[in-house]
């Protein structure tokens, strides 16, 4: 019997492709965000409100990840932005190679901001680097204020937290201050926005942040 020392990361192949994606995005000056959340937190609605506000300011492209159907890409296409749908057919997250394939269908030269909407899942997508600049985690008030403690990895790996559906707070037990506090216990450096896609509350602050970051990237 002999022992072979390996000491390699299981996800090294994904990480390597993610590095290539990141280099490609940098070459083209594209700012890339990876939106993650549990199913139904409001990623697509936030994206729609964002496109309404920013599509004339920034050149935006979208990659939609879903287990099944192209419903989300169709929702986004109404805003006249290039959109590619990835259907994972059961896969619970997007991987870097799927993004590499999808960007073959996009003109990165004509793009300032690429939004990747990941599969709704608060566990698996946190492990897979796609080559994005930042992960944006969306937590909705209806999910309760203890989500960050239950799914720490996702909140630890994200740079931005959007607390969505704040218009529903009068009808709920959950407390935004507690949600925010729990998220900051996991990741003190999170930038936090509170939004409602129904009333539009908080969308301007989020869109200003996004525009500023995308412009910095484009200028660099």
């Amino acid at each position, binding site marked *: *019997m*002999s*022992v*072979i*020392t*390996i*000491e*390699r*990361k*299981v*996800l*090294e*192949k994904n990480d390597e492709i993610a590095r290539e994606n990141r280099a490609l995005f940098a070459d083209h000056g594209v700012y890339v965000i990876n939106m993650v959340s549990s199913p139904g937190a409001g990623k697509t609605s936030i994206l729609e409100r964002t496109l309404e506000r920013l599509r004339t300011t920034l050149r935006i492209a979208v990659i939609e990840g879903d287990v099944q159907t192209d419903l989300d890409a169709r929702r986004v296409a109404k805003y006249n932005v290039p959109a590619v749908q990835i259907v994972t057919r059961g*896969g*619970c*997250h997007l*991987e870097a190679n799927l993004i590499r394939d999808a960007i073959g269908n996009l003109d990165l030269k004509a793009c300032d901001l690429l939004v990747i909407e990941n599969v709704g899942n608060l*566990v*698996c997508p*946190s*492990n*897979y680097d796609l080559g994005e600049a930042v992960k944006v985690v969306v937590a909705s008030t209806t999910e309760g204020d203890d989500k*960050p*403690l239950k799914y*720490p*990895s996702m*909140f*630890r790996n994200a740079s931005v937290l959007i607390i969505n559906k704040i218009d529903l707070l009068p009808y709920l037990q959950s407390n935004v201050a507690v949600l925010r506090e729990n998220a*900051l*216990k*996991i*990741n*003190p450096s999170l930038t936090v926005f509170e939004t409602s896609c129904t009333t539009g509350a908080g969308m301007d602050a989020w869109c200003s942040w996004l525009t500023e970051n995308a412009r910095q990237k484009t200028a660099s």
Partner: protein
Amino acid sequence: MHELSIAQGIVDIVGHYVPRARFDTVRCVRVRVGDLAGVVPDSLAFCFTAVTAGTPMAEALLEIERVPYTIRCTDCTSESTTEPGLALCPRCGSIATTIIAGTELQVMTIDVDEETPEHS
């Protein structure tokens, strides 16, 4: 449930060290899984059995070493094993902490029978 693709990834990495034709010589694969790696050890063990079933590696054992989530505090310089993901130092309450262990997801060593296979 991404443990299935992780299990497949482990088998693929072993394939860099042992030719697939000699997968029946692999006795044990040792992996390290951090408590914040987002991988359920029992589920990974189950998936490893599933992806190796009916292949020459079916007899190989998967040994999972769990790595506790550990942070180092910049303020009080202590190292603590704490609730996975928490940035809060349990000693002094500071949030100026860095993760020093618990995010690992690595193949460490494998045991193979007889002569050492070629490294590729």
